[in-house]
């Protein structure tokens, strides 16, 4: 058992050292090489050498840019082999440096040509969220004027919807509003055409409840909500509102909410101090609108029931999507404004959150609100919890989860995708390498997810149970060994450092030091956890030692030593328990 524990810790320890080993972490990709010629080299020589290079590698060797003329920076296409050759060539003496022109991977930026006009997506920090999910497998019901399959929705997935206005299956759009809203949620993206959408791998369920006039009855809308809940929608977007409270509507919303559907609605465009219905119902996430500068959009409702704000645009900058022009029936890219546009931003991000595996609508709402960027001065509740932040929301949703994406990204960032790393050392080294990589990933993951909150507890655990044991194995010729032994010792072993032998000192291998630490540190909210961690760590160390090699100074290796260690282990657990209880009560 002790061996297993030690092995696990050893793997983690190796992970530590690997993480800090820069050589592995900094191997990037490149397909060109930078040559920086020295100032004193005459232009004629440079041009001869460049010509030589062009001939040798059969390519045009160019300046990096017009700004490189005075810096004398040239770019040669090539790989590792070319880089080696160049470094060995006579060129080396004429240059300041010859180095790889590393490629920098930006965040996920789609290739839709009009994407640059979508300020609203940068406003909600969407690219960071796309690194994790695009909403695949999630269905968003768009309860609106219908949705037409305009060209930039061609690659978007649709599920069965319904037209409640004309009572038919085909829920096409004769108004232009619903198609625009659906575009914000799931416009076909990375298709080299038009604009992008937020959760573009999700399914759209088109539900038409508003006629060509833009209005529809509460009865139709309530039925559509139930239809969505019964047909597998995960998120409902309602960019509509008005009228008064209605028990039919409220009941439909409760029904969908109880079935686990996230319901998002627009706060309304009257610039008044309350959300419209249905946004005003407690189970609905009410979205107010901001303009491109982050101010409340002039039309947006605010105050009562507003949960969060998102880009709705204004005359100074609108939300552009692909829709149908009802006058001509043609596809158009057009900018709209309104809380109608803000709501689908939140619905799209809700779909991204659901795609990470969060199912409860209340949890989705909490994540949306907690991750939003707070607005300092907001006495009238213009913004609810703050500005929608897709990247932060998805990050919060994934906190504590190990995902393939995360692991892969970490591999790439740490340079482990390099084939050389795996081949060097042959097949024998493969298994330990795999262990090291997985171990260090788990460690990195653990630190990232939990360290900021439990630094003290973990530090204490390590100090109490094993110490930085891997340091014990380090050996530097000529250096005294005791500092390493000291740092590599757990609390119970500290006595050995003093005595210089392998039997445990009964004073150190007891509840005394943890007790002292807790008495000293209990008043400090952070350090207290270090003391609690030490106590648990010492308990673990004593208990393991009691069963494996109970060897106490003066007391020998018999039953007495074993009993002494076990009793002290129990006392340490009790001590840690009492100290942590005090904490909970106070909190």
């Amino acid at each position, binding site marked *: 058992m002790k061996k297993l524990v030690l092995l696990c810790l050893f793997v983690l320890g190796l992970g530590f050292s690997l993480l800090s080993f820069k050589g592995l972490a900094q191997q990037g990709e490149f397909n060109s090489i930078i040559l920086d010629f020295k100032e004193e080299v005459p232009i004629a020589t440079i041009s001869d050498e460049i010509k030589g290079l062009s001939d040798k590698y059969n390519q045009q060797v160019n300046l990096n840019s017009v700004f490189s003329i005075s810096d004398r920076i040239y770019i040669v296409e090539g790989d590792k082999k070319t880089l080696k050759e160049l470094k060995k060539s006579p060129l080396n003496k004429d240059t300041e440096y010859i180095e790889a022109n590393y490629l920098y991977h930006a965040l996920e930026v789609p290739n839709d040509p009009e994407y640059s006009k979508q300020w609203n997506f940068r406003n909600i920090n969407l690219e960071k969220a796309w690194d994790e999910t695009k909403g695949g497998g999630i269905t968003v019901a768009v309860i609106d004027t219908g949705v037409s399959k305009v060209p930039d929705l061609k690659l978007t997935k649709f599920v069965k919807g319904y037209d409640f206005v004309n009572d038919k299956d085909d829920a096409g759009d004769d108004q232009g509003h619903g198609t625009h809203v659906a575009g914000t949620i799931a416009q076909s993206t990375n298709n080299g055409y038009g604009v992008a959408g937020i959760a573009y791998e999700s399914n759209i369920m088109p539900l038409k409840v*508003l006629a060509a006039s*833009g*209005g529809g009855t509460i009865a139709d809308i309530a039925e559509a909500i139930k239809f969505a809940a019964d047909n597998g929608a995960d998120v409902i977007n309602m960019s*509509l509102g008005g009228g008064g409270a209605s028990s039919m509507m409220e009941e439909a919303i409760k029904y969908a909410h109880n079935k686990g559907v996230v319901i998002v609605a627009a706060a309304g465009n009257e610039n008044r101090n309350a959300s419209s219905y249905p946004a005003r119902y407690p189970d609905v996430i009410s979205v107010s609108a901001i303009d491109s500068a982050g101010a409340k959009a002039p*039309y947006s409702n605010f105050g009562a029931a507003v949960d969060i704000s998102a880009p709705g645009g204004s005359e100074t900058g609108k939300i552009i999507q692909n829709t149908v022009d009802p006058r001509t029936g043609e596809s158009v890219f057009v900018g709209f404004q309104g809380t109608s546009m803000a709501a689908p931003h939140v619905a799209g991000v809700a779909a991204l959150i659901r795609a990470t595996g969060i199912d409860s609508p209340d949890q989705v709402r909490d994540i949306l609100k907690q991750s939003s960027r707070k607005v300092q001065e907001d006495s009238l509740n213009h913004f609810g919890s703050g500005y929608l932040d897709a990247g932060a929301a998805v990050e919060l949703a994934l906190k504590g989860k190990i995902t393939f994406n995360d692991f892969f990204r970490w591999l790439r960032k740490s340079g482990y995708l390099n084939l050389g790393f795996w081949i060097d050392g042959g097949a024998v080294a493969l298994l330990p390498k795999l262990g090291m990589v997985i171990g260090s990933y788990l460690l990195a993951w653990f630190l990232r997810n939990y360290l900021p909150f439990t630094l003290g507890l973990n530090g204490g655990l390590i100090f109490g149970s094993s110490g930085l044991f891997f340091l014990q194995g380090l050996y530097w010729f000529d250096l005294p060994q005791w500092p390493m032994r000291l740092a590599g010792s757990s609390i119970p072993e500290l006595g050995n450092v003093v005595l210089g032998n392998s039997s445990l000192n009964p004073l150190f291998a007891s509840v005394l030091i943890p007790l002292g630490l807790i008495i000293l540190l209990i008043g400090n909210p952070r350090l207290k956890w270090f003391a609690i961690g030490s106590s648990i760590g010492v308990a673990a160390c004593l208990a393991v030692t009691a069963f494996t090699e109970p060897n106490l100074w003066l007391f020998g290796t018999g039953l007495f030593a074993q009993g002494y260690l076990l009793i002290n282990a129990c006392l340490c657990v009790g001590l840690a328990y009492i100290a942590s209880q005090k904490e909970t009560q106070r909190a």
Partner: protein
Amino acid sequence: MIKMKVIGKIEKKGFGFGVWTLVTDDNTTYELKDCPPELEQEGIKVEIEGKIREDVMTMAMIGKVLEVQSHEIL
């Protein structure tokens, strides 16, 4: 449903492809349901008789929905 007579100016509001509304002197906005084509002129003063539709929701969300039954351009 409440029947009422309202006097105000016709205004087209910029939500979606545009919505016809009636804005009264005290700045109350009514969204016009079934707005007759002859009323679709920016800035004209009219008197409209109609019903407030509490059972209707819209994509414009700019005020109460007034279903036009009769009208007079002033």
